[in-house]
């Protein structure tokens, strides 16, 4: 047998995981519109969502891979309804996990140094208080 090389057939097993995604809170108009657009393009709904997501990501040059920021935001969005019970409290999310609730943002920052000193990104927000604001930016220094 010495000096001979035998080719062996190695069985390849591909594991396919099918995931059912439930989107809570998606309004009827968007759902219908998404479904209609998928049919128009001859795609299954999952393919349409995947394509739309890839297109969305292609606009964000910093987001070639899923960043810590993306993971933390996804965690926040997933927990958003549940977090409403902490109204008035500050919550801390890092590493894709809810690390705690606090009386103020500074306490959250102190705890972050203890619980996740290696984190490059964290979400610190006060539930019910921090809300999206639309402000104005007139001319002046508006060349980004």
């Amino acid at each position: 047998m010495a000096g001979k090389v035998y080719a062996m057939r190695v069985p390849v097993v591909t594991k396919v995981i099918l995931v059912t995604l439930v989107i809570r809170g998606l309004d009827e108009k968007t759902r219908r519109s998404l479904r209609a657009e998928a049919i128009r393009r001859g795609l299954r709904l999952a393919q349409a969502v995947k394509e739309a997501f890839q297109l969305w990501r292609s606009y964000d040059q910093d987001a070639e891979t899923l960043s810590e920021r993306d993971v933390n935001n996804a965690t926040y969005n997933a927990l958003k309804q549940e977090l409403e019970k902490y109204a008035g409290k500050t919550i801390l999310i890092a590493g894709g996990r809810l690390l705690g609730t606090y009386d103020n943002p500074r306490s959250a920052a102190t705890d972050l140094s203890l619980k996740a000193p290696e984190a490059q990104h964290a979400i610190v927000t006060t539930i019910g208080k921090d809300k999206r604001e639309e402000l104005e930016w007139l001319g002046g220094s508006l060349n980004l």
Partner: protein
Amino acid sequence: MARRLFESLECWPNLDGNRPTLPVTLSTLDGQHVVHEQPMPIDTGFTGAMLLSREAFSNFERAELPESESRIYRTLIGPVPMRTARALLKLPLADETEILVDTPKYGVGKSLIGLRLLRGIELLLNGQRLETCLLEERSQP
């Protein structure tokens, strides 16, 4: 209307001779100085507290708001979405306060002081002397 008298406490020369500035100290929520008494231009057309360059903003990413709560600015060229984070600000002759700082989600941004930061301070933009001064109201003699 009663006449009011103000005393200038401290003044700083305008940047490049024409941009009013104030020196600011910015720290992270856990107290690490990021910017120390650095003169920052004032832009009264920016209604937020402070805009930062992307590079400066990266120091505050450990206390960022969720993307869904970050600010949007209405501009002449359409809405500009921001990334918003918490920071500690110290202005001359004032106590340290917590503020929200922004950087554009797309683009490199720049550092400037906005209108919201000027609330609560008395300021003189002196065009003749090309300087910016912090003021304090004096009681009438």
